[in-house]
């Protein structure tokens, strides 16, 4: 297995958030309504966490091929919100303690982790 996953980046724009809300049928105003979002503990619109998480699956598929996702496992935590116009990058490197899996993260343009966890490709 390669030592690193092929990184994947995406700019998180409001139109992308809107499209994701449509496809997931998720009208949560914390993603769509600036006035409502400002009243929450997030103090403004945040993107769906899984909008960025999906990039980790794309990194896995891009590195190994989609067929290697059959039997794959992933465990992640959302550790920081993603804001409109953030550029996020999904990446991963082999876990020295468990070479069958990768330690993965999604970072924002400031290099801050927004998602952390691990992923194991299928066999």
């Amino acid at each position, binding site marked *: 297995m390669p030592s690193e996953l092929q990184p994947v980046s995406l700019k998180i724009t409001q139109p992308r958030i809107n499209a994701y809300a449509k*496809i997931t*049928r998720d009208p949560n105003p914390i993603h769509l309504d600036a006035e409502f979002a400002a009243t929450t503990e997030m103090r403004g619109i945040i993107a769906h966490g*899984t909008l960025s998480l*999906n990039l980790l699956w*794309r990194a896995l*598929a*891009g590195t190994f091929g989609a*067929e290697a996702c059959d039997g794959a496992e992933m465990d992640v935590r*959302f550790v920081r919100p993603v804001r409109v116009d953030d550029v996020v990058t999904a990446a991963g490197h082999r876990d020295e303690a468990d070479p069958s899996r990768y330690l993965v993260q999604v970072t924002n343009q400031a290099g801050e982790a927004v998602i952390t966890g691990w992923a194991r490709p299928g066999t």
Partner: protein
Amino acid sequence: MLSELLTYDRIQIGESLGVFETRVDADALALWRSIYGDDVGGNTDTVPPDMISAIVMTAQLELTNPHPDGGLHAGQHYVLHHRPRIGDVLSTTSTPLSKEIRKGRRWVKMKTETRDQDGRMVYETIVTIIWAA
């Protein structure tokens, strides 16, 4: 859809919330590609693996509807058993596994299982959510 707003207090551990059926069709794929661009990894007639969380999340949201606005996903654990084929009918069940209040936040874990029309397991997920109210 549930008859009452599914607040934290109404969540019953171990009690299935039902089954939600969906199908990934050409329109859904086109919308998906408008967000992420072309498929990666040589997808042909199978659902892109990166759609797993969207499929599970859609089902989980529908099965808990109506629920209080403002909830947040805190974590996810996925097993992708098999990529379903485009056009497969996917049936997802959701069952609350646990709930607890920590530091004033309402933490809920739910297990989802997604099967195709032949009964074959395609996805298993444990979703951790901070319930809004």
